[in-house]
């Protein structure tokens, strides 16, 4: 967050000089101190109130970096020195963003923990100065106020936020594997209470303005305005400023107290927190919970607890010191690098690198109202796309419509939507059994049964009714798009859009282009996906594309491991222990055993021995017995409606027994089992890059983490190779190759990386 000492002293010198030079000009034009234009931070004076405006040039958001901090402190020094100014308002000129956080690139350049610690300490010092400001500073928040932005706001004396959907407050540092390092861990517990502060810091969740008001995170709310003398956004910011100025004056006149009236519950909690025993209990519970959830794979949450504890038990000085030190330690961990890498990848995959499509998709047709079709419909209608949902039966259609309605209604229950908004969104959906209205759609996404002949049938049917410009997208997890497109009259308009289930929860969308798919078709599909809120990777066509292709060998290994006598529960705990959010056996149940079988057969044919391992017979027998996974109530586990605890399916024992393989002791330690699963995944991912299925390693990482649940703490298969070391992975693969053969043969690209250690997927 800031400059070194030397620069700091330089600043003071600058500020001094500026002050003197302004002294004469200022007297005449008291309202126009913007004379001295800075790059990021400027201020004007309205009466006795300085209005400090944050506005970083050439960026949609404000971030805190050294320059911003330097300029901000210059401005504060001027304000503190001025006789005329009695208080200040801090506001952003950017619509939809107060401060989005500290500039994470600052951390990337740190070579040692000490450097990162120093960044934290500079931030701490600056905010401490702000907190002790003799003149009240009101933070006027419109839009995102995250990370360092929130730490800045809570160092101010008063906070006013717009009650806008875009206004969210939070400390998401934990999601980047670090902690709030500019006093956040010390101020938040005092401001919102220890439990709420833990919740914010450990989950990194965004908090909406109205909730923030209830928690005591902001002191006042301002309703966003509609159109008036100016565009709504512009006038709202102006209004926020006007209101903030009245409160700034009120604070100076002591008409308004910065202290908040706490409710009874809050008072009780605050009292309880004064008892050391209660505090210890809280630390213990939180710590246990975190350990259980992170399985020790993520160091940041535990350090956050530690730092908060230090502050509360040993005073703020120790707290600040601990905060900056742990911040430094965390910043250089592999986990943090992996998570930061994912963040960058996600930003990248939220952009349309194919440019703007010629025609905006406004009307969407979806074929098949099953789980996927209805899910796609749900994420489309709530973005204002007029959606026709077609199915073949009234019952099937009704089920799909109900799924969409339920998805929206759940949001009403969570109060993120009003019932009126739900109704109006739901009216974007038209359910039907025929192709009426398809002559107006700009894109059709089919989500019918995964069978080539069925796909061909609907493609021909729909091409007879859709207009020329309409795009045909196929939602399939494994069928090659060029085979689907083979019967199309216009293959340049055919593309694959592979959604993940449940569509409204899973962020990833894998878009598959064939040789013939036109660039505009791709641009259009990406635009629709982005509109639906998806993180998008664009890959080349091929059996299993990218995601399914990586998953298949891994699942094959999973089956072999099960055949070798490891029970599904053990396997699940081994895989989750490695960082997968869902255990491997559970994953098979969730995906559906029949789907897995289907995919295994298809890809087995396409890739041959490399995809072997477990016996396909296991899946065959499961399917024939109706153990299809969660959807049929039985798979590796037994699922019961309403009950969260699942027990092992004992009927599987006979299947396992009949297909039992001898375990090879030299590759069957817990760690080996974990690595057998992961290395096959990684090897196949690297092979996808080698084969040109993937365009970039970043997309490979995003696809693996967001689509398949590859451990986020490892950052994705490519980041994992970079951080863990290609040589070590090749060594592992060779070891397993010796035991099992070709399935573990490392691919050439991986060997290349192992041979020259300077080669990295991320430079």
């Amino acid at each position, binding site marked *: 967050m800031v400059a070194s000492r030397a620069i700091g002293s330089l600043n003071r010198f600058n500020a001094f000089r500026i002050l003197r030079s302004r002294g004469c000009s200022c007297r005449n034009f008291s309202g126009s101190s913007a004379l001295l234009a800075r790059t990021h931070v400027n201020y004007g004076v309205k009466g006795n109130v300085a209005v400090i405006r944050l506005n970083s040039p050439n960026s949609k958001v404000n971030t805190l970096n050294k320059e911003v901090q330097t300029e901000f402190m210059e401005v504060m020094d001027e304000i503190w020195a001025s006789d005329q100014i009695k208080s200040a308002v801090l506001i952003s000129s950017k619509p939809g963003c107060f401060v989005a956080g500290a500039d994470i690139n600052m951390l990337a350049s740190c070579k040692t923990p000490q450097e990162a610690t120093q960044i934290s300490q500079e931030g701490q010092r600056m905010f401490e100065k702000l907190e002790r400001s003799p003149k009240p500073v009101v933070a006027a928040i419109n839009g995102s106020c995250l990370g360092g932005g929130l730490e800045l706001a809570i160092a101010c004396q008063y906070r006013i936020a717009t009650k806008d959907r875009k206004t969210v407050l939070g400390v998401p540092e934990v999601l980047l594997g670090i902690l709030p390092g500019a006093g956040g861990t010390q101020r938040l517990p005092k401001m919102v209470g220890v439990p709420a502060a833990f919740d914010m810091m450990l989950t990194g969740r965004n908090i909406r303005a109205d909730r923030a008001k209830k928690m005591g995170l902001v002191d*006042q709310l301002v*309703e966003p*305005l*509609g*159109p*008036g*003398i*100016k*565009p*709504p956004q512009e*006038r709202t910011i102006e*209004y926020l400023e006007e*209101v903030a100025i*009245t*409160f700034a004056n009120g604070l100076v006149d002591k008409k308004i107290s910065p202290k908040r009236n706490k409710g009874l519950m809050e008072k009780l909690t605050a009292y309880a927190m004064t008892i050391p025993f209660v505090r210890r209990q809280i630390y213990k519970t939180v710590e246990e919970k975190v350990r259980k959830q992170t399985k020790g794979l993520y160091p940041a949450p535990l350090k956050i607890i530690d730092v908060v504890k230090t502050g509360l038990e040993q005073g703020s000085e120790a707290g600040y010191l601990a905060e900056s030190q742990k911040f430094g330690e965390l910043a250089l961990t592999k986990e943090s690098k992996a998570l930061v890498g994912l963040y960058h990848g996600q930003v990248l995959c939220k952009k349309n690198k194919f440019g703007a499509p010629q025609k905006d998709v406004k009307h969407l047709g979806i074929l098949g109202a099953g789980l996927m079709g209805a899910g796609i419909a749900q994420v489309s209608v709530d973005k204002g796309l007029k959606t026709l949902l077609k199915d073949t039966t009234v019952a099937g259609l009704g089920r799909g419509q109900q799924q969409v309605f339920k998805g929206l209604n759940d949001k009403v229950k969570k109060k993120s939507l*009003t019932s*009126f908004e739900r109704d109006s969104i739901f009216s974007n959906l038209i359910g039907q059994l025929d192709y009426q209205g398809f002559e107006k759609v700009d894109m059709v996404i089919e989500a019918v049964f995964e069978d080539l002949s069925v796909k061909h049938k609907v493609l021909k049917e729909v091409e007879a009714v859709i207009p020329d410009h309409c795009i045909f997208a196929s939602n399939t997890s494994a069928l090659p798009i060029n085979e689907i497109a083979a019967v199309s009259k216009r293959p340049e308009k055919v593309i694959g859009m592979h959604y993940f289930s449940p569509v409204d929860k899973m962020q990833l969308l894998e878009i598959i282009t064939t040789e013939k798919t036109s660039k505009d078709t791709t641009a259009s599909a990406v635009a629709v996906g982005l509109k639906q809120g998806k993180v998008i990777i664009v890959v080349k066509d091929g059996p299993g594309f990218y995601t399914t292709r990586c998953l298949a060998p891994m699942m094959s290994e999973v089956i072999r491991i099960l055949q070798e006598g490891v029970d599904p529960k053990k396997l699940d705990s081994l895989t989750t222990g490695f960082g997968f959010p869902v255990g491997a056996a559970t994953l098979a149940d969730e995906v559906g055993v029949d789907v897995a079988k289907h995919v295994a057969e298809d890809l087995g044919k396409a890739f041959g021995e490399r995809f072997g391992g477990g016996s396909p017979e296991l899946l065959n027998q499961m399917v024939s017995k109706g153990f299809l996974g969660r959807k049929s109530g039985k798979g590796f586990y037994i699922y019961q409606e309403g009950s969260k605890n699942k027990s092992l399916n004992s009927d599987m024992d006979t299947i396992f027994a009949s297909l039992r393989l001898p375990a090879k002791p030299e590759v069957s330690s817990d760690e080996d089992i974990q690595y057998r699963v992961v290395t096959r995944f990684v090897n196949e991912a690297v092979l996808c890059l080698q084969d040109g299925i993937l365009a970039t390693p970043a997309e490979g990482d995003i696809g693996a983490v967001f689509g398949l649940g590859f451990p986020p703490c490892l950052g994705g298969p490519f980041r994992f190779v970079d951080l863990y070391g290609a040589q070590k992975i090749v060594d592992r693969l060779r070891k397993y190759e010796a035991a099992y053969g070709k399935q573990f043969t490392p691919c050439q690209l991986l060997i290349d990386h192992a041979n020259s250690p300077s080669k990295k997927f991320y430079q």
Partner: protein
Amino acid sequence: MTSILTSTLKNLPNTSKWALRFSVRPLSCSSQLLALSAAQPKSKKTLAKPNMRNIVVVDGVRIPFLLSGTSYKDLMPHDLARAALLGLLQRTNVPKEVVDYIIFGTVIQEVKTSNVAREAALGAGFSDKTPAHTVTMACISSNQAMTTAVGLIASGQSDVVVAGGVELMSDVPIRHSRKMRKMMLDLNKAKTMGQRLSLLSKFRLNFLSPELPAVAEFSTSETMGHSADRLAAAFAVSRLEQDEYALRSHSLAKKAQDEGLLSDVVPFKVPGKDTVTKDNGIRPSSLEQLAKLKPAFIKPYGTVTAANSSFLTDGASAMLIMAEDKALALGYKPKAYLRDFVYVSQDPKDQLLLGPTYATPKVLEKAGLTMTDIDVFEFHEAFSGQILANFKAMDSDWFAQNYMGRKTKVGLLPLEKFNIWGGSLSLGHPFGATGCRLVMAAANRLRKDGGQYGLVAACAAGGQGHAMIVEAYPK
């Protein structure tokens, strides 16, 4: 095109942006402006349309509008409506049997008299052969009643229609909660004691929490006062401006009342109480007094207060509308023609109360008139902030271009012609009854002060709005 002319003309005398400054002394500044507008030629002699029946207002009355919870508090809505009908009968001496149809507007319905028009008509002694229905369109319900009458007459279905409106805010239907209602209905159907007991066992104390009639907009869950406050802020209307306008409304209403100009008011002998003869909500105060009030909706920094908002009111109005030929045949001298009218609607969240801004230029265009042709403006005053926001919206090129699809602004309204006998802020606003009051005020003002055209406009919940041209009947 003419509107450009109008606006430039208007801008000449008012170089200062706000004519409002003079509002406290309306007469002092109005004389010169009046002279100016009188000097302008009228664009049309009449708005009569070929092959269309002329529709006239013979006369209209209202019982005094009272603060809710005062003299009318023990009555029911149809009592007020009946009093208005009886007042109309007395005023006009219309034979009951010539009335073809009766229409009333109301907003918050008393469930016992959901067709309040019929109950009031029967009670007022109209023929049981005269059909009656009730309409609702929030604050423009009685406007809807009047325009429905216009439609019936224009299409030849009726010759004589009584239109009116009623609202009783002293009593509103407060219901049992949905859960409680469900249980009571199920109990009704339960056949055995066992069934009844099992139903009763599901009873929870929270079933008893009552359900009040919604004060909030259904689509947005926002109360109207809150929306008005945001609207005022969006148009940068200050608290002082709002208080000044409220003071103007009350001062003008007081003056009109004292001078006996509010001739549409008929006395009402309330059963068991004294005869009510005057509106009782007119309370001219001082800016200092008004400034003391705390904001009522957006606390603590909003600008809409109880004093610069219209208050909860009980009242009823009624009006006799006829085809011109019929009125003349019956020997009446009508007061005014009802001419073109429009209904508009817009975003119920951010433009809830901007109906007049949209409706005014639309109705003028429809009638082929310009702002300068209008001698009398009667706008419904829901809130000071709402009226002033509408003024600013109509005077903004930016707003006209970006939200109204117009090339130029509608123009500044001449304050000296605007609500000079008071408005809803001071006279009161019984939701369903206000429309008829506006039209009668316009008609009576045209008769009193001379002039040919009046423009009536109002906003309503749901983001709707209405405007109508009233033309003076030649003397």
